[in-house]
């Protein structure tokens, strides 16, 4: 019997599991597979708001009592970020920033995204600084176009010049290159030396260099630091198309920390059903080809994600279903007209708010606010009531809710 069964191996699941092991809990993660760590940009966005973020989060929580931040309280966000930084630090994954104000970081398209914290290898890209940039990437790599990125930055008044350098390795194989492969190349000193030698003469007054976020995987942060020393000015990473190398670095930290704590992470184990007695969950059952594998747990953290992560699915009529318990999903678009809202991403499309309603202890509740399972906590994108992409709260919510879920289990 485990103390804590975590369902889901995305950032919320793995982070909650790490926090539970820190409380001395016998913890096990069961999940369908690797998840949104591998598509996340890498920074930690808490809220897209000007000024002091802690105050803005508190204001948002007061305005929207069903928002996850209202349930977790704003202390959970600050405490969660502190825990995450402490967890990552021994592995060399350092985050910089603060809740006093956002960094403004460039994307591969040259857009500017606000984020409270970012890996140290991102922060020289803060667009609040006026330093002219050289945006550099390997010539012929389909996942990052320096000219596109630099031109869009320029249109917003940020001085940026593009440069495409030669990296013959990516043409030596006849197959596609993905970011993971490039990151492994940048783990090699000779690759870094050749790239730096091409970039240095092209600086032309640039005081910083932006490159796709592939500057090392297994040897990160050394790979990034070494490249930066070779080039001689600060080098910052810009997120690429998936798979996300910065997300993989975070996944690897979680994986190593859980292994060290003796917690098993079991993939390819989608939960088929939960075994429930009254208002308590007793166990999770995973089906294999011949029988069920049953894990008994004192407590369960449900971190299966939302519509993107697979914790919530939709049929072709737009009816939403939570996949593990069959919990009620709140906030689904009610008519096809709502589904086909004018714009999907840069709008308050109702689907973004759909999720599982929870009480302030993050226990799932029904339509009347009655607690359904007293030993279950919901963390991450499975929660209802927020629009991560538009609010700029995606990472903040998984961090705060993971911290709150574990805090309330061990209160």
């Amino acid at each position: 019997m485990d103390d804590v069964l975590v369902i889901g191996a995305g950032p919320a699941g793995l982070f909650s599991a790490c926090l539970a092991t820190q409380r001395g809990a016998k913890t096990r993660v069961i999940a369908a597979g690797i998840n949104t760590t591998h598509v996340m940009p890498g920074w930690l966005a808490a809220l897209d708001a000007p000024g002091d973020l802690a105050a803005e989060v508190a204001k948002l929580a007061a305005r929207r009592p069903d928002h996850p931040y209202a349930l977790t309280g704003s202390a959970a966000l600050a405490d969660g970020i502190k825990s995450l930084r402490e967890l990552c630090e021994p592995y060399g994954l350092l985050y910089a920033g603060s809740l006093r104000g956002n960094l403004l970081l460039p994307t591969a398209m040259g857009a500017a995204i606000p984020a409270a914290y970012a890996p140290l290898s991102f922060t020289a890209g803060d667009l609040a600084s006026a330093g002219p940039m050289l945006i550099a990437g390997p010539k012929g790599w389909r996942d990052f176009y320096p000219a596109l990125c630099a031109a869009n930055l320029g249109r917003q008044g940020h001085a940026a010049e593009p440069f495409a350098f030669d990296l013959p390795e990516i043409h030596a194989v006849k197959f596609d290159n993905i970011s993971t492969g490039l990151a492994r190349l940048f783990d090699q000193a000779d690759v870094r030396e050749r790239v730096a030698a091409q970039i240095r003469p092209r600086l032309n007054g640039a005081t910083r260099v932006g490159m796709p976020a592939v500057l090392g995987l297994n040897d990160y942060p050394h790979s990034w630091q070494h490249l930066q020393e070779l080039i001689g000015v600060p080098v910052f990473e810009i997120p690429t198309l998936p798979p996300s190398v910065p997300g993989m670095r975070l996944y690897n930290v979680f994986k190593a920390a859980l292994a060290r704590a003796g917690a098993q992470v079991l993939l390819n184990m989608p939960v088929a059903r939960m075994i429930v007695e009254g208002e308590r969950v007793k166990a999770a059952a995973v089906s294999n080809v011949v029988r069920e594998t049953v894990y008994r747990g004192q407590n369960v953290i449900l971190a299966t994600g939302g519509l993107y992560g697979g914790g919530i699915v939709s049929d072709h009529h737009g009816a939403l279903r939570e996949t593990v318990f069959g919990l009620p999903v709140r906030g689904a678009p009610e008519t096809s007209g709502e589904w086909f809202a004018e714009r999907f991403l840069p709008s308050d499309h109702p689907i973004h708010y759909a999720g599982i309603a929870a009480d302030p202890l993050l226990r799932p509740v029904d339509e009347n606010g009655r607690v359904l399972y007293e030993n279950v906590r919901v963390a991450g994108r499975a929660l209802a009531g927020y629009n991560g992409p538009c609010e700029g709260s995606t990472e903040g919510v998984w961090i705060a809710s993971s911290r709150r879920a574990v805090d309330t289990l061990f209160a």
Partner: protein
Amino acid sequence: MNETYTPALLEDIKRTADLCVKCNICTSACPVVPVTELFPGPKYVGPQAQRFRDPGAPSPDYSLDYCSGCGICTLVCPHGVQVMEINTAAKAELRKRNLEKKPLDPKLLRNWLLGRNEALGQLGGIVAPVANLALGIKPVRIVMEKTLGIHHKAPFPRFHFRKFRGWFFGEHQREKAPAPAGAPKVAYFHGCATNHYEHEVGKAIVRVLEHNGFEVLLPDQNCCGLPMQSNGDFDGARRYAYANLKKLGPTVEQDIPIVVGGTSCGLELKSDYRELLGIHTPEAKALAEHVYDINEFLWLLHEEGRLKTDFREQGGRYLPYHTSCHQKLHRIGRPALDLLALVPGLTVEEQGVDCCGITGTYGYKSEKYDIAQAVGKPLFDKLKASGASTAVCDNETCRWNIATSSGLTVVHTIQVLAEAYGLG
């Protein structure tokens, strides 16, 4: 509480290709991709190429053969694509076509031979001293590599003239305490490796089961068929499967559980007969439902409160553990780690390296030996640095590979338990 969401159509493994969203999580996790440029990754040769595999048209498969079949792609996929299984099915097609094109290719003969480890064990056993001597001589291995393409450094186990079954039906029956009246029965599928090479694994399994009050039966059996299947010889694998279905039928009919020591043989009986070889008979289903991985069986026994825990204190002993790829594909979690955690004074650490590289017979092949070694290197390095002299792994070819490449002695979980119980 909730039905599986996958429509019935998608249960056919090839159709799971349609669930792929091309996120490349599998390619990022594949252990072969980082060490060779010959393999583009599971997404490309799996779900992506599957869309071009029209039964009537030539196949686009040039690099598929470099898939090691470890199944980490299937494991990490969050969308339910059975990537490795798609590849295995495509490899069988590839072999068929290669046979038509170049029937005398020595690599096809080599793959034919590697698929017949049962016969190799029989033959090698008859001339065990000569065979062991010959396999220990470098020039012989070089000739084997030149003619057959079996790499001269690939890890071969030692042949034995005597078989495990001989021990069981001979001295063990004479020496063991009689089974108590009404003792529950359990049948043991030992597989080729235990019968021919690793008797100690089989002895430990029999002793641990008997210690827990079972009467152990050893039904007639043959090779599970996996070595042929993974070398693309589905017809040969099916012949073995049907033979086992017949031989194990009476055990199943009597509702006696069948435990398997090797994680690969267990997976073959449980899942591959039906899912990959397409034997959708009531007998295949009934057999699968009676098959348990030995660790799974003992852990379930413990969950029912029936496993003896009279283990001796191990005084702070440390054992590194490697989870074999095929163990993970059982979808039973890590029962070995749960069992070993019951032993007082024993610390077992999962090494967290996905694959040792050998993946059945892949790492024996001259053109793939270096790839397999590079895949396993992080594990070998970690084990060498651990300071331990013994490691634990529950799959036989992984054990031989890890032992050869790391220098550690590698044993099965049940051997550790038998020792902790104080059994012979």
